């Protein structure tokens, strides 16, 4: 295999605080070396016979990592299959995703986890790590075979959008997963306060006559999870944090050394409950889109590291499933292919985060939570690289998605910046201009 040189790009590796113009040398699927350009602009000559990827004017980042993506296979192939979901990941710049356990049957046993990996291998797109269920059938009652799931490749545990409301079960799960040093990715919501809700509980919900999900539904469960993490010394990761109350509690807990981490989705950083005024099922999300004061708190959480990861929380749904009344429509948006652009709009354009901070939340942050060796550009690490054109103007066209689904509220919206080349194991797996060129 010939070496690859990615030349002239702005190389950002948040894991070591690097942000400089450099050439990146890749050998045998690994990062081989980084050749910094001198301040004068001069650079080391590129050897003959190597594959050159010209990246002048582009950002060269460690491959993006997504903590929780619903691939829907097996069981919901009308929404997504592994092949399309992983192609969508590559098109969005993600080299690695963790696949949610909310398939049918649920990934609560070793063979189910192995099937996820098998399908990912067959697809040959991005890396896929299974998430194992915490409890059997996501019922929140009995522990799933966590040790067997680890043997089957599970990197972490999650009951997806099903909160584990029984505190005793959650406590034992946190204690049990300690043995394997794997986190529990929990959807911290009080089910009784969520029941029947379709949007954020606030003035807009009152105006529209829609049942709301109060911020307290998340605040309360966040507090409980933190208390249990402290009690058990287990690792809890809170998915899809959307409230200022949760951000404050997580900040305080982390400062006290409790092992709690958190992520936020790109769309919750951009959209508020006002998008519900057209009753658009494409905007129905769980947790719901909240208000600007909550968004401000989430951004502060990203700025000071309280929230260390951004996840697309990809929730593909077949077209007809969203073509129904609001209360009958499923929650979630198809978000892998818009995640980076939405982050740029919400965080980079207003100046809330530097590129290095944003990329940390998309690379080293999630890598650390899942204990992955990737998410950095250090020599010897897997050559998972995302090349981003930060200035590229483009319009979202859901019909052109790699995903099997099109449920996005961003259809026809203009954005600036997107991934142009996605490299996994030193191979170009996706290239914007050649669609899915394979290196």
């Amino acid at each position, binding site marked *: 295999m010939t070496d690859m040189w990615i030349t002239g790009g702005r190389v950002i590796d948040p894991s070591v605080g690097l942000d400089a113009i450099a050439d990146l040398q890749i050998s045998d699927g690994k990062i081989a070396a980084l050749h910094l350009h001198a301040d004068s602009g001069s650079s080391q000559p590129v050897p003959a016979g190597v594959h050159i990827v010209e990246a002048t004017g582009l950002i060269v980042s460690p491959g993006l990592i997504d903590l929780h993506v619903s691939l829907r296979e097996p069981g919901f192939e009308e929404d997504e299959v592994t092949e399309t979901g992983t192609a969508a990941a590559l098109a969005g710049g993600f080299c690695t995703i963790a696949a949610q356990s909310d398939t049918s049957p649920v990934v609560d046993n070793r063979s189910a986890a192995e099937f996820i990996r098998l399908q990912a291998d067959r697809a040959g797109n991005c890396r896929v790590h299974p998430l194992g269920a915490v409890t059997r059938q996501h019922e929140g009652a009995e522990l799933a075979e966590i040790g067997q799931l680890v043997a089957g490749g599970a990197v972490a545990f999650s009951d997806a959008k099903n909160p584990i409301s029984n505190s005793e079960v959650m406590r034992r799960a946190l204690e049990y997963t300690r043995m394997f040093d794997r986190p529990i990715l929990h959807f911290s919501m009080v089910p009784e306060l969520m029941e029947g809700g379709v949007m954020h509980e606030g003035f807009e919900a009152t*105006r529209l006559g829609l049942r709301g999900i109060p911020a307290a539904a998340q605040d309360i469960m966040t507090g409980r999870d933190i208390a249990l993490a402290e009690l058990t010394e287990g690792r809890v990761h809170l998915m899809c944090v959307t409230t200022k109350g949760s951000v404050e509690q997580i900040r305080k807990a982390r400062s006290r050394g409790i092992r709690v981490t958190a992520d936020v989705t790109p769309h919750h950083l951009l959209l508020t409950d006002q998008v519900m005024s057209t009753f658009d099922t494409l905007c129905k999300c769980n947790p719901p889109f909240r208000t600007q004061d909550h968004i401000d708190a989430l951004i502060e959480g990203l700025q000071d590291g309280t929230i260390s990861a951004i996840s697309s929380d990809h929730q593909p749904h077949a077209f007809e499933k969203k*073509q129904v009344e609001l209360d009958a429509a499923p929650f979630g948006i198809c978000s892998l292919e818009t995640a980076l652009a939405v982050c740029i709009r919400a965080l980079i354009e207003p100046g809330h985060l530097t590129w290095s901070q944003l990329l940390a939340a998309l690379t080293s942050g999630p890598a650390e939570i899942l204990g992955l060796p990737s998410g950095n550009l250090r020599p010897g690490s897997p050559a998972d690289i995302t090349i981003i054109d930060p200035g590229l103007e483009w319009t979202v066209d859901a019909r052109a998605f790699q995903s099997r689904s099109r449920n996005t509220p961003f259809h026809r919206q203009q954005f600036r910046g997107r991934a142009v080349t996605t490299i996994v194991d030193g191979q170009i797996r996706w290239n914007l201009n050649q669609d899915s060129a394979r290196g």
Partner: protein
Amino acid sequence: MQFNDLPVTGPWGERHLLGLETLSRDQLTTILDLADYLREQTENGTRRLELLRGLVVANLFFENSTRTRTSFSLAARRLGADTVDFTASSSSLSKGETFIDTARTIEAMGVDMVICRHRTPGAPHLLAEHLTSCVLNAGDGTHEHPTQGLLDIFTIRRHLGRIEGLTVALVGDIRHSRVARSNIHGLLKLGARVIVCGPSTLIPANISRLGVEVAWDFDAILPEVDCVNLLRVQFERQRGAFFPSIAEYASLFGMNGKRIRRAKKDLLVLAPGPINRGVELTPEVADGPHSVILDQVTNGLLIRMACLSLLARERTATQAGIS
């Protein structure tokens, strides 16, 4: 009678009637004035006009309703339209067909106007987006019920001669009431002062941002109000306990003879119905001189005739413009 003969002086220009929130004061007045005119022309809705001859009006009722459906059917027939009724007791999903497909199927039978009642807020808005017919919201879950709001306002205007400057209390389950929301939007635009009154569990904390006052003590506000609209206690929409007992509700928020005597002499008592006698109001109030409950029913017919005429007129004008 032709559309051109209708005395529509104010603005309209709407293809659908989805709610009162998006209508202007002048548009509301246009409807009320037309209802007044139709009242004279049809002798209180008893005589037939041929305004909608040749048009097909479909009642799409995805939620049980006898009163509203009958009122709409009668209004359409009084105007000479053909009507078809489609009732589905449950969501379309349970039958495997999406709501939109069901509506499109009905529309393909040659329907010009669709009257939609649905348990989900926004369902008529979804139809308006996907159908070519006019859509009239006959109640979408806990969101709006524009013709009910209009008929309440029309009834008040007929009895008290105006809306501007009046104090109207909406009493009861505000949280789950589409009637309350439509009344609030309509009354505020027409210059009334609106107080919402009921158990604190049934009044959303932020509703004052709509421009209404919030009261938990019915007796305290009673001497100030010109009209009370007693909303039905909607047992079917209440999950869990919003108040301890019917008896306690009736004692705190029920309209009874004692309260009538503390109120203004010419207090108007409205109730959108169906009324729970002994809960929202006692029989002596329901059948007493302050009650205009049966007028509301008659006025409902007139308001619905007015709305159907305005939408049909707009539709005909648009189609003439296209061809």
